[in-house]
């Protein structure tokens, strides 16, 4: 009996992209011992009062993310906990380490917060559950927790403040955090509140709404702040509610295979979490191919903490497990049921097919599914269908990722995109250059690159501060650092969607001085930032072994070579700006670019008040040339929209991605 062509191939999907993705076919027996060990560890945390680490290693395609999804399902299931007041059993967060070593704490804070704010299946989010539970501990809740909570807000709103103060005292929340949590509970200033919780750099106006002052940039240490926030979130959960932090794609912290800083930073992160908290289970997933690298680059004491409870390998599948996986995939396709009746359990495949695929040392689930998909296609069509060449696959991946990056791109992500993407870009576009560790003498230079041959250094400072006070403070410090540093080039980067208004006198003054002294000021377009984001995401997934073309793992080297050959011109120019004697060094070009950027900044600021205006009105109001203003707007199609006149009308585009 032949297979109709319209029956979907049950073996096509072989990658679980995200532990939070919808539930799929799962064979509990596969990696059961590793799963059980994680569950036991969570249970024991409740009584031990000591954080612990589990290191899980496996080949590319061995099912690391699949296992995390199983853990997520287990730890966020809806079983009613047998406690009064009801409390979450544990907090779960899964963090792909697609970030740069210098922003690792901020990245973890952002992802942890996003998971704490996830509301699934109509339930309140994990953070809400935690806060209510902790408050009910202090002021006993009678009856249903939701009703009690409503009663408290309606009848005793002042009590909420008292309870928050109590939490702040016990869990290490400072005044700004307590203030923001109150907004969170009350549902006020939602956008600003969530932005603050995620650690975004908020403009002065947003901080004002929340009742907070701009942070003192002279002493601000964003990484230390993020670390303190994570500690406070974990403390908020309390000893009876373990926090499960799963780190995936650790390998993507490396900008290139020689990069040591990424893995070192990861070791430090885990060690700090391990030692500074009492209720955290840290699950770290890595490729077994990196075993020797991890041992080499992570400090011994940190490595011990990564696997303080257990170091576990995800074994290759043997025959019985493989049969089970194949069968469960076939079972999941309903139209196949009737056709399979009267045949073997694996029809249209056979046991001998599976045995051959498994071989004498076993195979990964991805390898098994890939081969089964091919055999299913042959059974269905009489011949194998050639997989598209890897170039075609990468082109499709690139286009898809670029679209996604454009859709989700907003100014709040600019700093992490640059911090993560630029090292990847340089490693692809200028392999003769190498990222260097940060220089303690240049605390405001976020990224340093050096020419391998001449050791000439170029520094990049991410001037993405939302608050003009903070920006001015940074530029002031940079002025001094630039004068003293031996840098061939200093590039200041700022998102054009966060204009430096004419009112920001100090910031403008320091910026102007820096540029006079040779620093370059670059405002990457949203399209460029999206391309950088897509590049980093593609390379990160390849380095983590999660990029698969028709079931075949695509190596990082292949991706690098493809990217080098197909780099978007804007990305090449950006890399050239950092590493080469870029055109912007030319004085007249520099001045023209400055004027163009300044015009766009001022127009943005003007439109944030007026929403819409004719070009002539805007030019008159801003005191600048109308043609120059129109040109600046036309150069930034994602930022401004123009209605052809006469008169020509300009307005600011609305972000396509809506805030959560």
């Amino acid at each position, binding site marked *: 009996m032949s297979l109709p062509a319209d029956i979907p191939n049950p073996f096509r999907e072989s990658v679980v992209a995200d532990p939070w993705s919808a539930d799929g076919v799962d064979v509990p027996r596969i990696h059961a011992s590793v799963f059980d060990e994680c569950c036991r560890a969570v249970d024991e945390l409740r009584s031990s009062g000591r954080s612990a680490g589990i290191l899980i290693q496996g080949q590319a395609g061995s099912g690391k993310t699949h296992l995390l999804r199983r853990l997520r399902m287990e730890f966020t299931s809806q079983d009613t906990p047998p406690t009064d007041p009801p409390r979450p059993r544990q907090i779960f967060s899964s963090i792909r380490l697609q970030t740069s070593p210098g922003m690792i704490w901020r990245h973890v804070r952002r992802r942890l917060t996003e998971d704490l704010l996830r509301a699934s299946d109509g339930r309140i989010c994990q953070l809400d559950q935690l806060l209510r539970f902790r408050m009910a501990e202090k002021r006993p809740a009678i009856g249903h927790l939701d009703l009690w909570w409503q009663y408290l807000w309606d009848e005793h709103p002042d009590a909420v403040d008292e309870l928050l103060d109590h939490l702040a005292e016990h869990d290490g929340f400072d005044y700004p955090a307590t203030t923001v949590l109150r907004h969170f509970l009350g549902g006020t200033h939602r956008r600003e509140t969530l932005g603050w919780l995620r650690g975004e750099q908020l403009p002065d106006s947003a901080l004002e709404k929340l009742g907070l002052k701009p942070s003192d940039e002279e002493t601000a240490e964003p990484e230390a702040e993020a670390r303190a926030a994570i500690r406070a979130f974990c403390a908020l959960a309390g000893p009876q509610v373990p926090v499960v932090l799963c780190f995936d794609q650790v390998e993507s912290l490396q900008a290139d295979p020689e990069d040591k800083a990424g893995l070192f930073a990861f070791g430090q992160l885990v060690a700090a979490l391990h030692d500074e908290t009492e209720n955290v289970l840290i699950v770290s997933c890595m490729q077994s191919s990196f075993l020797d690298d991890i041992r080499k680059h992570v400090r011994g004491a940190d490595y011990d903490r990564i*696997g303080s409870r257990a170091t576990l390998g995800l*074994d290759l599948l043997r025959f019985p497990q493989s049969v089970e996986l194949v069968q469960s995939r076939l079972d999941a396709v309903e139209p196949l049921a009737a056709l399979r009746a009267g045949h073997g359990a694996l029809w249209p495949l056979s046991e001998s097919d599976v045995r051959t695929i498994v071989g004498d040392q076993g195979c990964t689930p991805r390898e098994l599914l890939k081969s089964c998909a091919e055999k299913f296609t042959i059974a269905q069509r009489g011949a194998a269908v050639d997989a598209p060449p*890897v170039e075609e696959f990468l082109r499709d991946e690139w286009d898809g990722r670029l679209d996604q990056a454009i859709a989700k791109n907003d100014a709040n992500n600019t700093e992490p995109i640059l911090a993560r993407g630029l090292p990847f870009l340089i490693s692809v576009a200028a392999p003769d250059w190498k990222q260097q560790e940060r220089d303690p003498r240049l605390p405001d230079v976020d990224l340093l690159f050096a020419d391998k041959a001449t050791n000439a250094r170029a520094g990049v400072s991410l001037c993405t501060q939302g608050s003009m006070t903070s920006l001015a403070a940074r530029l002031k410090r940079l002025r001094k650092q630039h004068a003293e540093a031996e840098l061939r080039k200093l590039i200041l980067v700022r998102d054009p969607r966060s204009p430096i208004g004419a009112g920001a006198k100090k910031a403008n003054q320091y910026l102007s001085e820096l540029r006079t002294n040779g620093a370059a000021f670059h405002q990457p377009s949203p399209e460029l930032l999206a391309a950088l984001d897509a590049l980093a995401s593609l390379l990160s997934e390849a380095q983590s072994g999660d990029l698969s073309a028709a079931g*075949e793992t695509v190596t990082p080297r292949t991706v690098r070579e493809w990217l080098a050959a197909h780099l978007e011109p804007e990305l090449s120019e950006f890399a050239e700006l950092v590493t080469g004697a870029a055109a912007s060094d030319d004085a007249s070009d520099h001045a023209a670019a400055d004027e163009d950027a300044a015009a766009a900044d001022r127009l943005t600021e003007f439109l944030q008040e007026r929403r819409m205006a004719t070009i002539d009105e805007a030019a008159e109001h801003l005191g600048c040339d109308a043609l120059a203003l129109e040109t600046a707007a036309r150069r930034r199609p994602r930022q401004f929209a123009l209605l052809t006149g006469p008169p020509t009308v300009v307005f600011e585009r609305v972000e396509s991605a809506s805030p959560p």
Partner: protein
Amino acid sequence: MTTVTSAPPSTETASIVVKALDASPEPLKAKQIGEALTGPFRFKPDELQRTLDELVAAKRIHQLPPYQGKVRYWTRSLDEFARTRIRQALDRRPLTRSELKRSVKTSLPGVSEKRQGEILKELEQQGHVHKLPPLLNSRTERFSMRPADPREYVTHALDKLAEKLSKVGIDEQRLRAACREVLDGQATEPAPSTAPPAERPIASATAHAGATAPQTETSVAVDEGNGRPPVPRDDELARLVIERMQAITSASHAALVSITDLRRQPEFDSVEKSTFDRVLLDLGRKERVALHRHDYPMSLDEEERRRFVLDGHGRYYNAVSVRVESRELRVES
């Protein structure tokens, strides 16, 4: 408490010292000799030194040039020691002339480079050492304790080809399929070794250990007089592998062990790479251990790949764990 005698060295004493030196695989310093002697033959340092001086004068033992600041004694000559060192170095893996020179340089004080070259030539003429033709794209000859193995050359050439062709999108699998096609169905299994029984299998890192059928080798490799302990049998090795893995991971179940770390365990010093690989692959087949393949072996240089276990299909394994379900199993003798 150890008693140190003050009795003058006797004929018996001298012969005990000679016997101790004779049994030693390498020259010993006076202090080491003193520590090797037991019971009534433990002397004060000056008395032992007097005995050694007398034995040297009587030409019953040799005094070798200072190593780490101390002279050493042995019943064999400096040339003999140089021969042993060279053979030991070449027994691990084939080396070029300059690699060999670097390898033995510090441990052979007093032997000029010229003399080392002469000794190497003598060993070659006597058939103890084999000069191997250069690998593909290389002009450097290498030396080995074993004759050239075509499999090493084919593997090396395939690695080079895979690296080159990967740049134009041809992956390793396609390359191997093409090779099989070109060979047109010829047997791809390596032919049985034609080496005489006294020769051990090739020690090359790239030898196709896994391509051979599972072995039940029971013979004990013979100590060839180079001072190394006898090589354990495969089944004993298997037991040792599991034991060492459990020791490295502090008995943590299913923990991954780096093949490089495992190979460095002193218990495997005298074990050839091909034997070690074969035992690991066999344990994998029997589901006692789980071998983990390196996902991007071509991103590593040859030296790094050489540290991994290689099967007969171009797959490199860089890590291994004891399978959970078999961790309580004992390897049967």
